[in-house]
């Protein structure tokens, strides 16, 4: 079981979500985050005082996925979230120790 964490541009969320539904992904958690990679920030003025806009709004998706779908999931996200411009984001994959469904108590692959 894997946990796929993807940081993408906020306006790409709908595209990614639809594409993932089409390949059969059933559960996603979404958080609003801020961040930067190599996409640098810029300075703005507020009432004459300078401030640096370092952190840009992004959206983080977390998807727990089984072995069968995980490569497809990564491909799908990569394609759907891509704009070709700097700041498109990153995907991180980690192994998951255990998954439990709270309502039924199912564990492991049945809980994905």
């Amino acid at each position: 079981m894997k946990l796929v964490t993807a940081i993408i541009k906020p306006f790409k969320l709908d595209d990614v979500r639809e594409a993932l539904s089409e390949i059969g992904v059933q559960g996603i958690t979404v958080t609003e985050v801020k961040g930067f990679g190599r996409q640098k920030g810029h300075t703005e003025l507020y009432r004459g005082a300078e401030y640096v806009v370092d952190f840009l709004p992004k959206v983080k998706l977390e998807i727990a996925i089984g072995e069968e779908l995980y490569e497809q999931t990564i491909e799908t996200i990569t394609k759907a979230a891509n704009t070709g411009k700097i700041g498109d984001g990153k995907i991180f994959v980690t192994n998951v120790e255990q998954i439990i469904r709270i309502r039924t108590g199912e564990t492991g692959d049945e809980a994905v």
Partner: protein
Amino acid sequence: MENQIFELQYAMDTFYFLVCGALVMWMAAGFAMLEAGLVRSKNTTEILTKNVALFAIASTMYLICGYQFMYDGGYFLSGVTTVSQMDDAAIAQVLVDSAEEGFDGGSVYSGASDFFFQVVFVATAMSIVSGAVAERMKLWAFLAFAVVMTGFIYPIEGGWTWGGKDVPFIGALSYSDYAGSGIVHLAGASAALAGVLLLGARKGKYNAKTGAPQAIPGANLPMATLGTFILWMGWFGFNGGSTLKLGGIGVANEVANVFLNTNAAAAGGLIAALFVARLLFGKADLTMALNGALAGLVAITAEPADPSPLLATIIGAMGGALVVFSIVGLDKLKIDDPVGAISVHGTVGIFGIFAVLLSDPDATFMGQLVGTLVIFGWVFATSLVVWFAIKAIMGIRVSEEEEEQGVDQSECGMDAYPEFTN
């Protein structure tokens, strides 16, 4: 028949005071929204509490003693005719007074409506202070100051100006201020300045090494904008009501021109501030535009009747341009004013006082100057003493940790947006 017309005039002029007073009361909502929008979310509940409480305190202190100090209206409004006191004899007296004044003379109206109209001005003056000291002042210290400002400091100064009383060592003032650029706005800003000087800047506002101002953006610009529009509308009552009479052709036309000029000045102020901000900062700064509209309103407040519509627009524009420079200037002096209150009401308040000379042939430079110095001198000095006393007794600033955490927690124990996660 004549008496019936006098009765109608009484009713109309009374009604006019009440409606204008209600409009000025609505400005309290404007201040609350404007200030809440320009502070950080962790300080929102506290500034709202300050705004509602100061309005209530002003209403009460002015009732207890302020109205007496300013207009000899009687402690606890003993001089105001109550419902049961308006008996046949009292009504007959009103008609006698009206006949003496004549149709075009001074307005004869209900004393209760006079108090109602006056008290909301006190609250406006006090409200100016709350924005300047935001995000780092102890709530109860502020409220303690409000008691003295609304019960004593403002009424004394108001008595010397609108009340027509002699200033000690100076005598009667020949100072012209239609709706209070000086009497209300400069007064509020003077009290604010005294407070801010003793309070100090917000932590992190000025870079420790370079002194450069750091941006501390407001949490809710929609509220700040709503607040500005509410103030703009309320100002029609603020300036319009200051005509003090409606029932008559000349005076009704004056009221109409006051409304017109008030709006024109706000518009001029906003446009000028927007342009100046664009020139200085490269982009359209909404908060400067909002301050600009208010500056335009303050600038015309001392004389909204006499200028032509074009002149009113220009006066407003000058105020709007001035306020942007003043805000930047105060930051250079490390005087931290989160909402620009001292600039809008103080710097432009002074400008408004002298702008009277542009259209009122009866006003004099010396008259305006002496008035300005008396108002500023009295309010600033007494405020400094009161702030100092409060500081000595209970302290006026929250601790560093409390400031970090937000005064919503330390002063009010509740978040403005408890479910809001970011």
